[in-house]
């Protein structure tokens, strides 16, 4: 690593560390944010415009010619690119788990990263997941914010990235800035980022049947995407719904009788 890189990195790391510490200090002791509820979408009109744009972009880039196409949506090369890209996402997840004060997923993802980078030939294969029972413990800075007590905010649909919330959108921006891959020299960093993007494309293709169904076959794909995202995200962050008294029972719903 050159002297200038080290210096630049040092200043930036210091800046980021200060930012994170000041945020953490402001939020310390708050505990995780409570589960979001209902749908808070004051920007629905502009979100719907973004959604229409995303749908068009998705059609152009990804839509399978026929939903009954039985070929696997991702070939071996795409699969390898996805694995490498996902492997390169692990350092950022380790960092986030540490910021959340959760050592277990940090340790697991560290071992996963080491195993797949070596035995898995730079992440092309996934022996950690298939042979060592170390699947990815997925996390991001949006979850870190949640753990620090930041509420989800309003719903947002982001261009290209899709469904999100104010908190998760901020998390995406911070994740870009604090990604440990930024410590790489410019050329390998660019390659790494290209693989990260490749992994996103692979994920979209892998779940093409479901994404196509939600995005292109729904009567109101905006409302469906929003509901699915919010429910799934709340489950990821807060776990299973345990409020039994409020559980919906269609056999006792007076509106249906």
């Amino acid at each position, binding site marked *: 690593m050159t002297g200038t890189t080290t210096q630049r990195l040092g200043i930036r790391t210091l800046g980021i560390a200060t930012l994170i510490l000041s945020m953490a200090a402001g939020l310390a002791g708050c*505990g*995780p944010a*409570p*589960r*979001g*509820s*209902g749908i808070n979408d004051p920007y629905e009109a502009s979100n719907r415009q973004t959604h229409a744009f995303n749908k068009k972009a998705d059609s152009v880039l990804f839509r399978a010619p026929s*939903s*009954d196409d*039985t070929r696997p949506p991702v070939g071996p090369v795409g699969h390898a690119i996805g694995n490498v890209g996902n492997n390169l996402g692990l350092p950022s997840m380790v960092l986030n788990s540490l910021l959340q004060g*959760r050592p*277990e*997923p940090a340790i697991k993802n560290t071992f996963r990263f080491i195993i797949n980078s070596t035995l898995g030939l730079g992440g092309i294969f*996934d022996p950690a*997941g*298939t042979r060592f029972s170390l*699947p*990815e*413990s*997925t996390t991001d800075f949006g979850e870190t914010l949640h753990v620090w007590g930041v509420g989800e905010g309003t719903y947002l649909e982001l261009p290209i990235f899709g469904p999100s919330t104010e908190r998760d959108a901020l998390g995406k921006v911070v994740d870009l800035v604090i990604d440990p891959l930024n410590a790489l020299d410019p050329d390998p960093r660019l390659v790494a980022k290209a693989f990260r993007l490749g992994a996103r494309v692979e994920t979209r293709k*892998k*779940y093409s*049947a*479901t994404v*196509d*169904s*939600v995005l292109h*076959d*729904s*009567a*109101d794909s905006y*409302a*469906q995407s929003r*509901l*699915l995202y919010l*429910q*799934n*995200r*709340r*489950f*990821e962050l*807060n*776990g*299973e*719904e*345990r*409020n*039994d008294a*409020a*559980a*919906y*029972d*269609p*056999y*006792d*719903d007076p*509106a*249906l*009788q």
Partner: protein
Amino acid sequence: MPQPMIPMTTLRYNRRFILGAGVAGLAGALVPGQAFALNDSQARALIERAVTDTNAAIRSGKTGPALYAMFERIFSKYADVNVIARSALGVAARQASAAQMAAFTKAYQGYLSRKYGKRFREFIGAQFEVKGARAIKTFYEVKTTAILKGQAPFEVLWQVSDRSGQDKFFNLIVEGVNMLASERAEIGAMLDRRRGNIDAVIQDLKTAG
């Protein structure tokens, strides 16, 4: 429109903890048995059978319409299609005639099987395991884990009731995504598009999904 999505103040509950604590953690979470006609083991048994049939359908190697037809048979055998259809229609179910309800339910069953059949592709290769059951109000929620090689296991909850006269499941919650809530939003959107005309929605359902 009332959302069947379950709101929402709740114990803070960490999924990783539950997965880590496994059966021990689950046993602690079980609500003590109450006097239901349906019991824990019956609810589990129903979902065991549904899961066995689903695993067999996945292993059959069938795809497309042949697979959707298998799902439709599983669905009509184990799910209370009538109450799911009623719940999806929401208040519109009250205005529908018996003939309209019957036609809607029939079209809706085919639609659901196609729609979820397509979305099921990513489950291919998954094995479902029943992990436990707990009582909620007058029904049971059976927890299953779907295991896909190399991926973190994911959770599918099946809500089971005997209030149709038979033990049937009436809702599925996949990684937090509640089928009844999602269906009510979608059928509501279809009704809006047809200005509340159920007959038009029934026609749409025959080709949708």
